[in-house]
């Protein structure tokens, strides 16, 4: 008998208030693992890709994987999936916290909501069964208030819940779903889907113990994972400073978007916003998802002042950047207050911050005026304006109604597409492809739009992980060759992580390799996955989600990353010298006039292709050579024509990616590759 999973999901019809247990065959679990993989399979089989995302026909799927809710590290986690109201394609959002173990103990692998209720309701799911209860008294309450009230109402100390706030109720396109006040299913607007169904919350409290195929093997796997994490320096960093440990290092390598991705390097920002600064000032304690030893969550308090924050979850890295450096704002207290507001209202910090940053630049450019902004003068580093806009967005008030539609819709209305930084409508997370070239491919080809969590490229390009288990070479951050193969390997693993459902922090800190995934899955499920079978499952699920995107209308044209984040920064210079330039100058010895002329030409060609507009001492020493001095000064000042032509070589990388993935001119996976993965039905849907 299969372990890890129950073999059934609960379908709730919110229109007529009925429930149905749906039994799924074991082969589906084997091939699609669980989580968003299984959700995608259900979505495709039920042919719902044409449903309007905010209509009753769009299913909201809350799915766990076999690892979810077990005693392994980093698995108090589930996926929330639907057609996204923000992008119009496949949407999924992963959530940690404390909800997944309780849901698992009710005897289901997931819940699928279809239809829509006329009045606000919440679902209560216990060992005794499912019940839809009136939530009118909760409608309008923020997520913190909702959790507290529901806890009291349900009267079960161990009950856990997920809920939406005013943003979800008001169908803000990037509304999210919350648990434990700081854990979010953040991206793609899953909170708006929930709001469109008048579903305020889901409460779960269960006691059933799910089967484990091989108890001893499972205990061994758990022990090994915990041992690896105990000595992982990456896990230690996360535990000590939270995900915001990335801020200072990120800025040092040019990875932290600043001032709507315009500014290359802002030294002060991370020193005031980063994890170390938080630990030394407003941090009160640390926190974790249920049973996780990484302990990456931060609890903060700002006791007084205009940006007071009640003791509660603090900014993760994405919030510190999106509501901080992206706004060119380094007020730590304001940043955490902004984060708290997004948590309470239930909004994705990345999309919210990005949309506000876009609007600020559009205002600066004269595309948006005070007439449009209810008289608010938008500008950089304006904490009070930031908080005012977050409030307006959540309630869709005035200009907030425009902002609630997201960056793609805003730029469609006001112009400025060139600085609307999104892919397929999903705003780019706070990692810069100009620092880590692989992120350009990751953003372009992730199945939900610009996303940094759907694959492990971020970790690989930072030199923390590799793909030896898949026989794929890791590449330098600034090398285009091999990036496509690296990205495909990273995507296989990311897809598996979101199907088995394990936190990338836990798994990647432990090496992020498929043998360890098999080590966990096999004793739990009783399957005998090999690395090859898992890799194949990773491909199958990725291609299925890609195909769903195509069926929803996505084409190859949308696999584009904005030029803003491929070309050199508009302001300032980046710290890093490109590897391609260094050997050229290292090879210089004493030179004749003729050789100097040849070097000038060679230099211009190299600079045009690779270099970022900043030179190290080795280049500045070349100033002593006649002819080079003024040239290098121009390069340093970013005025050189060669610098202006420099970009991340995206076109070269994406063409190689399409070739390896066998994607056609319309952006569809080929029939051959789909049928080879046992998906003839998907191929027929795409090609007729």
């Amino acid at each position: 008998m299969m372990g890890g999973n129950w073999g059934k999901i609960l379908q709730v019809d919110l229109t007529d208030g009925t429930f149905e247990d749906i039994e799924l065959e074991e082969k589906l679990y084997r091939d699609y693992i669980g989580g968003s993989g299984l959700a995608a399979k259900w979505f495709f089989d039920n042919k719902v890709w044409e449903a309007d995302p905010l209509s009753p026909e769009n299913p909201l799927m809350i799915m766990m994987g076999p690892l979810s809710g077990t005693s392994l590290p980093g698995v108090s986690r589930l996926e929330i999936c639907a057609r996204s109201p923000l992008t119009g394609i496949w949407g999924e959002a992963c959530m940690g916290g404390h909800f997944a173990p309780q849901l698992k103990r009710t005897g289901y692998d997931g819940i699928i909501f279809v239809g829509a209720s006329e009045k606000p309701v919440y679902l209560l799911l216990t060992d005794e069964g499912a019940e839809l209860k009136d939530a009118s008294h909760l409608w309008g309450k923020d997520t913190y208030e909702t959790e507290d009230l529901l806890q009291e109402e349900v009267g079960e100390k161990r009950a856990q819940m997920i809920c939406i706030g005013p943003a979800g109720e008001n169908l803000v396109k990037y509304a999210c779903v919350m648990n434990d006040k700081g854990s979010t299913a953040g991206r793609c607007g899953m909170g708006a889907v929930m709001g469109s169904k008048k579903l305020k919350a889901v409460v779960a409290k269960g006691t059933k113990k799910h089967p484990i195929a091989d108890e001893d093997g499972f205990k061994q796997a758990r022990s090994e994972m915990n041992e690896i994490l105990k000595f992982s320096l990456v896990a230690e960093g996360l535990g000590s400073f939270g995900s915001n440990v990335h801020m200072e290092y990120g800025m040092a390598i040019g990875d932290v978007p600043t001032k709507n991705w315009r500014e290359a390097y802002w030294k002060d920002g991370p020193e005031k916003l980063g994890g170390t600064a938080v630990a030394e000032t407003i941090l009160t304690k640390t926190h974790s998802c249920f049973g996780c030893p990484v302990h990456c969550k931060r609890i903060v308090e700002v006791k007084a002042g205009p940006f007071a924050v009640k003791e509660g979850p603090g900014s993760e890295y994405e919030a510190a950047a999106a509501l901080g450096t992206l706004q060119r704002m380094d007020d730590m207290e304001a940043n955490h207050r902004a984060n708290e507001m997004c948590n309470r209202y239930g909004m994705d910090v990345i999309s919210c911050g990005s949309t506000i940053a876009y609007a600020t630049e559009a205002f600066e450019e004269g595309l948006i005026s005070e007439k449009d902004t209810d008289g608010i003068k938008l500008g950089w580093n304006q904490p009070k304006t930031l908080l005012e806009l977050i409030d307006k967005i959540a309630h869709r008030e005035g200009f907030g109604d425009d902002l609630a539609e997201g960056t793609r819709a805003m730029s469609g209305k006001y112009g400025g597409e060139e600085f609307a930084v999104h892919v397929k409508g999903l705003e780019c997370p706070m990692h810069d492809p100009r620092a880590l070239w692989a992120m350009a491919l990751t953003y372009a080809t992730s199945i939900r739009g610009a996303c940094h969590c759907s694959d492990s490229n971020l970790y690989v390009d930072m030199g923390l992980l590799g793909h030896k288990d898949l026989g794929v070479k890791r590449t330098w951050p600034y090398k285009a060759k091999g990036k496509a193969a690296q990205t495909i390997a990273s995507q296989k693993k990311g897809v598996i992580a979101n199907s088995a459902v394990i936190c990338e922090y836990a798994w990647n800190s432990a090496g992020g390799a498929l043998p360890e995934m098999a080590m966990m899955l096999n004793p739990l499920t009783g399957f005998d996955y090999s690395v090859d079978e898992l890799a194949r499952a990773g491909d199958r699920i990725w291609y299925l989600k890609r195909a769903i995107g195509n069926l929803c209308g996505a084409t190859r044209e949308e696999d584009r990353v904005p030029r803003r984040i491929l070309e050199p920064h508009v302001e300032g210079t980046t710290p890093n010298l490109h590897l391609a330039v260094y050997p050229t100058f290292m090879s210089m010895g004493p030179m004749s006039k003729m050789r100097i002329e040849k070097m000038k030409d060679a230099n211009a060609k190299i600079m045009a292709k690779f270099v970022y507009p900043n030179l190290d001492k080795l280049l500045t020493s070349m100033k002593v050579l006649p002819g080079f001095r003024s040239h290098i000064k121009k390069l340093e000042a970013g005025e050189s024509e060669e610098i202006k032509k420099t970009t991340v070589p995206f076109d070269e990388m994406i063409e190689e990616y399409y070739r390896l993935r066998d994607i056609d001119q319309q952006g569809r996976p080929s029939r051959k590759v789909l049928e080879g993965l046992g998906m003839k039905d998907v191929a027929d849907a795409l090609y007729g």
Partner: protein
Amino acid sequence: MATVKFYATLRKATGEKSYESSAKNVAGVLREVPKLYGNGVSRYLKSCTVIVNGRNIAYLRGKRTKLEPSDEVSIFPPLAGG
């Protein structure tokens, strides 16, 4: 003297934000740090990222990158977030 700055868990392990070094190159700094702060910090230095004046040493001369007075050397242990 170059200013050597510690970040994240390395800062926690050394108990210091920075110190002044007269080491001639990055390798000298990396030898010096455990001597000053104990062998317990060595594990953070094995796969660390070193940035000199904002430039990653991987793109300079690696650990042979020479240092001058007024240089700023930032040492990051392996870390990821975001």
